[in-house]
């Protein structure tokens, strides 16, 4: 039974669709695994056993009736980041302010998963409103990295990546505003993809920074991520920023890549992503990865993107500015937490007291930072300038992609740090996103794929691959080729102590 949790999504789908195992027993196996290990990992904020089994049984009924499966992933269960709305199922965004809220509607991603027959195991832990790089900003306690329960699983989507690394789910959905899919993937040795902005609908994704947020697939293999990508991607009339274009053929690209031939592919190494602040083991892992790409037939050149060094400051103006406005709706009037409604306080006071009570320190910090950056008198110097940097970064990418098909870099400058280590030092925490942010600012597609363990601490390192907007398939081709050459990394993770 427990072997089912060790299979990839592609393998599970195959077994379910041929009737070898049922979707219900597959889902149950993962629910059992969650029950066994999640006390230690804390990847889930809410487990919806009933809903997941019901969806699984519907898939089994289809298969028994000889009906074609609703999708290539029908019956394969999934962990959903708690930032996407689920009708009638709690959605907290890791915040106290939404504790107990039951959305009256499904996000488009949620709806597509349901329509595809994907059972949703539950909602995964995250930094509050996706603000953070460690999942320590969750109001419901941190998620722990299955590689070392004393370390962070990355953030904001630490719950999704940890659920994969702990074999609690074969697939997960994350969201990525500055690296929240890729950095957790890197530090847990899993695969995470931030699709092109506009590739996956944001309808029902509780906004942190609207112009940067993008939901994407997470898996233990590149092919699994590709299968999930095709389920969730595509134009949505409910999202005005959704791109009305065919979904890139990412599954085909992953299968092609897995054959191990990258001849004719030009890979650019971003010169600016190395040096001070980068852990030695991370850089050496990256060098090895680049060498492997060459062995696969890729032509590797160094490219310079001089404005990338301004990406981090630009991000920490744009994202807080947008969040200060996006989070204004949490005001205790229509839903969510309300405190001090004792008849002695005005609506205005109840708003202020509730927001003080309902938001954690990082959220407050960013809301104030954004409020400041948008204020009259400061707008041009801060928000306005950050938007110009965004133009420069887009130009850097455009120039680089004139020369190469994809860019590569380490996903994060360091391996996962200890819980609590950076929690009081926001600037140090922000540096985790230094390599991942440019793709968000430009709207490009990017992936993190495991690139082994760092030699000095034995902890996971990720290789980031970046492709132009709407060329998500390139990520999968290069990622799958590299994955095949590199071999599995997650296999090196021993069984979690708690589960014996």
């Amino acid at each position, binding site marked *: 039974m427990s072997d089912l949790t060790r299979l990839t999504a592609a393998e599970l789908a195959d077994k379910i669709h041929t009737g070898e195992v049922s979707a219900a027993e597959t889902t149950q196996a993962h629910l059992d695994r969650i029950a066994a290990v999640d006390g230690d990992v804390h990847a889930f904020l809410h487990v919806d056993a009933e809903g997941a089994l019901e969806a699984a049984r519907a898939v089994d009924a289809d298969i028994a009736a000889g009906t074609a499966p609703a999708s290539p992933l029908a019956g394969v269960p999934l962990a959903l980041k708690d930032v996407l709305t689920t009708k009638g199922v709690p959605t907290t965004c890791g915040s106290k302010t939404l504790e107990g809220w039951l959305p*009256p509607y499904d996000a488009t991603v949620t709806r597509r998963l349901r329509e595809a027959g994907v059972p949703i195991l539950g909602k995964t832990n995250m930094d509050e409103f996706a603000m953070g790089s460690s999942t320590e900003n969750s109001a419901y306690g941190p998620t722990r990295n299955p590689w070392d329960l004393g370390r962070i699983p990355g953030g904001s989507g630490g719950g999704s990546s940890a659920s994969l690394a702990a074999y609690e789910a074969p697939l997960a959905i994350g969201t990525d505003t500055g690296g929240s899919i890729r950095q957790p993937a890197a530090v847990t040795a899993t695969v995470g993809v931030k699709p092109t902005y506009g590739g996956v609908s944001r309808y*029902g994704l509780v906004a942190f*920074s609207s112009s940067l947020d993008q939901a994407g697939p997470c898996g233990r293999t590149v092919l699994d991520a590709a299968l999930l990508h095709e389920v969730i991607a595509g134009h949505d009339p409910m*999202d005005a920023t959704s791109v009305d274009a065919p979904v890139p053929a990412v599954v085909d690209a992953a299968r092609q890549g897995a054959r191990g031939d990258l001849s004719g592919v030009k890979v650019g190494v971003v010169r600016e992503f190395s040096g001070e602040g980068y852990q030695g083991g991370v850089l050496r892992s990256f060098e090895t990865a680049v060498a492997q790409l060459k062995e696969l037939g890729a032509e590797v050149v160094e490219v310079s993107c001089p404005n990338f060094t301004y990406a981090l400051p630009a991000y920490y103006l744009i994202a807080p500015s*947008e969040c200060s406005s996006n989070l204004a*709706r949490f005001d205790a009037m229509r839903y969510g937490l309300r405190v001090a409604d004792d008849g002695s306080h005005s609506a205005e006071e109840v708003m202020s007291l509730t927001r003080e009570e309902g938001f954690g320190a990082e959220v407050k910090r960013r809301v104030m930072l954004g409020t400041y950056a*948008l*204020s*009259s008198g400061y707008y041009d110097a801060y928000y306005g300038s950050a938007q110009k940097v965004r133009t420069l970064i887009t130009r850097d990418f455009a120039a680089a992609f004139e020369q190469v098909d994809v860019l590569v870099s380490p996903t994060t400058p360091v391996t996962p740090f200890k819980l609590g280590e950076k929690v009081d030092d926001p600037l140090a925490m922000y540096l985790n996103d230094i390599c991942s942010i440019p793709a968000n600012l430009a709207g490009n597609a990017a992936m993190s794929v495991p690139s082994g363990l760092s030699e000095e601490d034995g902890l996971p390192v990720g290789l980031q691959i970046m492709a132009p907007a709407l060329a998500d398939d390139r990520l999968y081709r290069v990622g799958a080729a590299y994955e095949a050459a590199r071999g599995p990394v997650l296999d090196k993770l021993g069984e979690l102590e708690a589960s014996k």
Partner: protein
Amino acid sequence: MTTTAELMDYAEVVERYDPVLGLEVHVELSTNTKMFCGCPNSFGGDPNTHVCPVCLGLPGALPVVNGTAVESAIRIGLALNCDIAEWCRFARKNYFYPDMPKNFQTSQYDEPIAFDGYIDVVLDDGEVVRVDIERAHMEEDTGKSLHVGGATGRIHGAEHSLLDYNRAGVPLIEIVTKPITGMGERAPEVARAYVTALRDLLRAMDVSDVRMDQGSLRCDANVSLMPKGASEFGTRTETKNVNSLRSVERAVRHEMTRHAAILADGGSIKQETRHFQEADGTTAAGRTKETAEDYRYFPEPDLVPIAPTREWVEQLRATIPEMPWERRKRIQDDWNLTDEELRDLVNTGAIDLVAATVDAGATQADARSWWVQYLNQQATSRETELADLAITPAQVARVIELVGSGELTNKLARQVVDGVLDGEGDPDQVIEKRGLKVVSDDSALLAAVDEALAAQPDVADKIRGGKVQAAGAIVGAVMKATKGQADAARVRELILERVGA
């Protein structure tokens, strides 16, 4: 707020000061759906039944622009002789208020869809004034709050409030004038005439209900004074809650007299929002804000820019109907009206009604006479607008037709119209119910004539003897017997026929 402001005599105000006006009009579009979601855009309804995740501001919901609302905005811009932006964006206006679900209003800031236009406004005496338009931009309406408890049921003193978001997200166009200067004593009248012209324009375009009483047309009036001959504008106040055309004029006039009294006394005007009070025609200061608002506008990231192609703009231009003032000119020519006749038509607000009555088959002279005279008197005595009278142009045309065919006398026709106005139904139904038709059936009349002649044989003899004028007494008797429904001329003919005179 309870102290009565000192006011200066109006004649003195305009002798010493030059007024500067700025008018901001909000128009609710009459689209099928809201600005950013597919909820029905309709007035009323049970609370919170025209809502969805988008207009309730639920976490995760996203706006998508209503294409028809954009078309209406562009058409309004074109009708106001504006330039249409080649590229513009929505922006978020950030401030907290419970009737605003997202705590920001999706609006347009420095990139309005339409800008730099004008409208020619006709004053009561026929003078034409050009009012320059600064901009027309798109935004969304807020929800409505109901204040519970407290003495007045209004916001002050309320214990709590109840919110209905049916109106939240309804498409609005905000039309802002450039400063209107040089109007002198006519400034209040210009303000009213401007809003009237705008209302007529929007109605002709069929883009809004333009009901000031229901809030689908709202006007905020900015007023300042500067000493006669000065060029630097004074400090302005912004008066809200102006709910009728008449109130626009009164509010401007009141603010002018209030400002003047303060300025003449050496005081200074506080830049503030004031509320018009319908009951006494004065304005009252709102709550003073502790800090200046800082709306932190920034481009709405959830909505992509709007870049109307020139082809699209030209297609929309072709759909703009004849403007009311152009139509007036044409009608004056077509109907061969004197300036005075046209002014009567315009002043009574009868022009569209007369035209519609003509379209329904009446002659313009008859139609004009009915609307400008009898119906206008009725509107006045019933304290309503001519257009709001409970009679349609088609009904008026039917009455005119019945008079023309002799089936109604003018006196009966007025009774029929009264019946329609009182809600008794169509003219024919009123005639039926009240039994008002002219008795034209000769046999019925003959019976009444014979009866009258038999009752007064001496008079009958006199007529027979050639004293034809004696027939008057018999006519009177017949009219009395038929309760005035007989055609007196025909009665006379029958009498003479009967006696063989």
